[in-house]
């Protein structure tokens, strides 16, 4: 803090307020942040902490409803809050680089990638057209895109998400800025891609002396890359300091909560507190009962047509066999497009496999009568990724949770009412929530409602497709605990799907690793994580952020 000569960005007492129709919301309430030259600083916080608002305030890109009500943002000796829009424009792209959050929407689909990367050079008149073109190709090569000459001539839709994010980083770096602000630069990407891109940002910053301010919700990402960490909550800084110090010796209670909630590979199997410790050790042994659900050698092809109109098939699931025993949790990990969600839908009976068979209690799904199919649907319940779209916005919590009870004609009206309240108790929601609408609940509370609905008809298997991916880490931990407790209480089996290996490890007895529609490895969770056999599993494990986190604990 004393070393001010090297200070590049100094945010002092920053307050930002959003003005809505009937009130003013203070999103940032007096924040101090320092970034020195060549330093990587991570701004960590959960949704609603004001981290993105701070990033936008620094870039002078606050939405019209927001305004800086107090404080200064000094960049290289100049107070940015007093800058005119004109003066800001000279700064942006040239000395202040910006890497936006979602690479899928941040590039203009109707311009070639090279032109968009070169745009800052042309706007700031730093290069001629021809020169800008060669420098754009150079920059694309520098951020690790193969064949940059070809990439520069392509349109954004021809590039994958990771490639687009690299192109955006190339655009942010092309003028040699003193500071890059990256707002959740890898949130939309798969872990293996995330690792490479974060490595690239780090290496490029180090080699060019550019300072980086990374905004992230993921403490593990911050832990691995940053020199210093700033922890934000409700618009105030909870803790700020050297990354290693913060991780090893967190001073603030909220930082400790975040650290404890962050799923990392060092944390073991999450179990209900009262369950016998030995139970976990004995569990993955072969269960004498027949499997609840089994898929045998299933393949699923989807018809696709490419840009040229040629029809073909895309094999989403390719010859997969697996079985889930009563009471066990089978975790399924894989990156986007690995076929894990399609496999889940085959298990749920929502997708017919092209070949192979899905079975429920030893009987093929295709051969079930209408009444048997109804009973199967009672026993196999889904929990979806996004609790914002899995609950009907027009029904109250009680109506949503009570729906399967009425649908399967369980009990009478009075019994159903009591059972609904009992289910709310089980998922830790107060009875007062019964009459609320989903819009009045937070994401974590909605996921609890979705879980209560799935539990209502007393199923044997719950298929959870990314059940915590849409939630903040501290909420994730609570929901995972709840799932573990309910499993212990009701002897439920779970098919648990996630892109997040650390989360899967915490809940699973056995883990399957999917890639390109195949299960490349399927074994007990301990085996998969301690002694991975397939090279892809090893790559996945290496890519998980949070190594420093594990070292610190």
């Amino acid at each position, binding site marked *: 803090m004393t070393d001010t000569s090297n200070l590049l960005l100094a945010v002092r007492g920053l307050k930002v307020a959003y003005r809505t*129709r*009937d009130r003013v919301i203070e999103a940032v309430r007096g924040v101090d942040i320092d970034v020195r030259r060549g330093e990587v600083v991570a701004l960590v916080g959960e949704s609603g902490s004001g981290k993105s608002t701070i990033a936008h305030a620094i870039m002078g890109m606050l939405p019209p409803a927001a305004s800086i009500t107090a404080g200064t943002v000094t960049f290289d000796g100049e107070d940015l809050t007093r800058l005119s829009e004109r003066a800001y424009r000279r700064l942006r792209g040239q000395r202040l680089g910006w890497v936006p959050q979602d690479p899928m929407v941040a590039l203009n689909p109707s311009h070639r990638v090279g032109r968009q990367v070169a745009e800052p050079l042309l706007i700031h008149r730093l290069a001629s057209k021809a020169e800008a073109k060669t420098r754009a190709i150079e920059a694309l090569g520098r951020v690790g895109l193969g064949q940059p000459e070809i990439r520069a001539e392509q349109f954004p839709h021809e590039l994958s998400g990771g490639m687009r994010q690299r192109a955006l980083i190339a655009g942010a770096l092309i003028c040699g800025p003193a500071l890059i602000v990256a707002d959740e630069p890898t949130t939309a990407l798969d872990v293996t891609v995330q690792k490479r891109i974060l490595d690239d940002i780090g290496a490029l910053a180090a080699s060019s002396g550019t300072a980086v301010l990374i905004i992230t919700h993921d403490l593990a990402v911050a832990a691995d890359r940053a020199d210093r960490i700033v922890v934000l909550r409700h618009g105030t800084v909870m803790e700020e300091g050297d990354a290693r110090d913060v991780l090893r010796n967190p001073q603030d209670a909220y930082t400790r909560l975040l650290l404890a909630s962050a799923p990392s590979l060092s944390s073991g199997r999450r179990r209900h507190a009262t369950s016998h410790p030995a139970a976990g050790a004995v569990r993955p042994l072969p269960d004498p009962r027949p499997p609840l659900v089994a898929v045998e050698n299933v393949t699923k092809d989807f018809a696709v047509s490419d840009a040229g109109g040629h029809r073909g098939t895309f094999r989403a699931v390719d010859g997969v066999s697996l079985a889930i025993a009563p009471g066990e949790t089978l975790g399924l990990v894989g990156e986007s497009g690995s076929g894990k969600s399609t496999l889940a839908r085959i298990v*749920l009976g*929502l997708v017919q496999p092209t070949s192979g068979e899905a079975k429920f209690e030893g009987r093929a799904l295709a051969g079930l009568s209408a009444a048997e199919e*109804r009973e199967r*649907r*009672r026993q*196999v*319940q*889904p929990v*979806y990724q*996004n609790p914002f*779209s*899995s*609950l*009907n*916005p*027009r*029904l109250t919590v009680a109506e949503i949770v009570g*729906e*399967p009870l009425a*649908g*399967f*004609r369980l009990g009478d009206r009075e019994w159903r009412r009591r059972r609904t309240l009992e289910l709310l108790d089980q998922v830790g929601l107060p*009875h*007062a929530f*019964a*009459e609320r609408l989903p819009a*009045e609940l937070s994401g974590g509370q909605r996921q609890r409602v*979705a879980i209560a*609905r*799935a539990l*209502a*008809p007393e199923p044997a298997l719950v298929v959870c497709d990314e059940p915590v991916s849409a939630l903040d880490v501290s909420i994730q931990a609570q929901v995972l605990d709840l799932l573990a407790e309910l499993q212990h209480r009701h002897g439920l089996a779970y098919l648990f799907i996630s892109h997040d290996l650390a989360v899967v490890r915490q809940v699973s007895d056995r883990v399957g690793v999917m890639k390109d529609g195949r299960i490349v490895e399927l074994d007990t969770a301990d085996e998969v994580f301690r002694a991975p056999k397939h090279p892809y599993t090893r790559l996945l494990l290496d890519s998980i952020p949070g190594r420093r986190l594990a070292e610190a604990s």
Partner: protein
Amino acid sequence: MTMTYPRGEGSAAAGRPVSRALGELRIATASLLRQPGLLLASIVLATVLSAALFPQIFTPLNPLRGSGAARLLAPSAAHWFGTDQLGRDLLTRVVYGTGESVKAVAVAVMVGLVLGSVIGLLAGYVGRWVDDILMRVMDVLLAVPTLLISLAIINALGFGTFNIAIAVGIGSVASFARVMRSEVLKVRQMPYVEAASFAGIGPLRTLIRHVLPNAAGPVLVLATLELGMAILSVSALSFLGFGAPPPAPEWGLLVAGGRDYMATAWWLTTLPGLVIAITVLSANRVARALDRRHAATF
């Protein structure tokens, strides 16, 4: 953001919708006061509506009886809209014509809304060949100009204000069906609809409980937008003489009746025409406000 409900178990269900409705009313009034244009449009529509229901409170005169001495008088303090060739007070005729026009417009919009919604709902939810057949028929309806369709239907049904309303309504079925279908397609693939199939709920109940309420919003907004269009179409058709026979006051008919006196008595066509224009503009302004409110809540 956090809300507390300090009520007991029993009163929770009863007390809640009332307080919510009151709150929404308060917000609606507050936003109305902040938009003078919208306020004015709402007042115009309220006036038109009350004129339709209780014309006597707006004018003491009889719309059908004129006085020979007061023929073709220009607008004045005694006759705000002037008088026609038979000495009838034009304002009185416009006021009494409101009822007929409003009734026709209401029927037209209801016909379009109900028929279009059912067709769109079936097409979107059942899909496959049902969708193909229904929507191709709708495409044909859309391909022919609305006025032409209405004329054809009136020719089949016969003249009269009610038949005009039916004809205008059928002319707008296609746009309702298309909006409903696209909304149903959107809602149908929501996870909560899929979840309903794991709650032991049949397709019909899913349609009524989960799909319809969540798809209806934009269709209702379209209905308010169609209101303005329907006023115009109904007036246009009665202007052409397909509606009520002459002595009865009706907006389109009033405009038509004044044509012969254009050169000497401009007010006979201009003022009823102005009333139609202002009502259409007000209906559209209110519809736009509803549309925006709808967009903001979803």
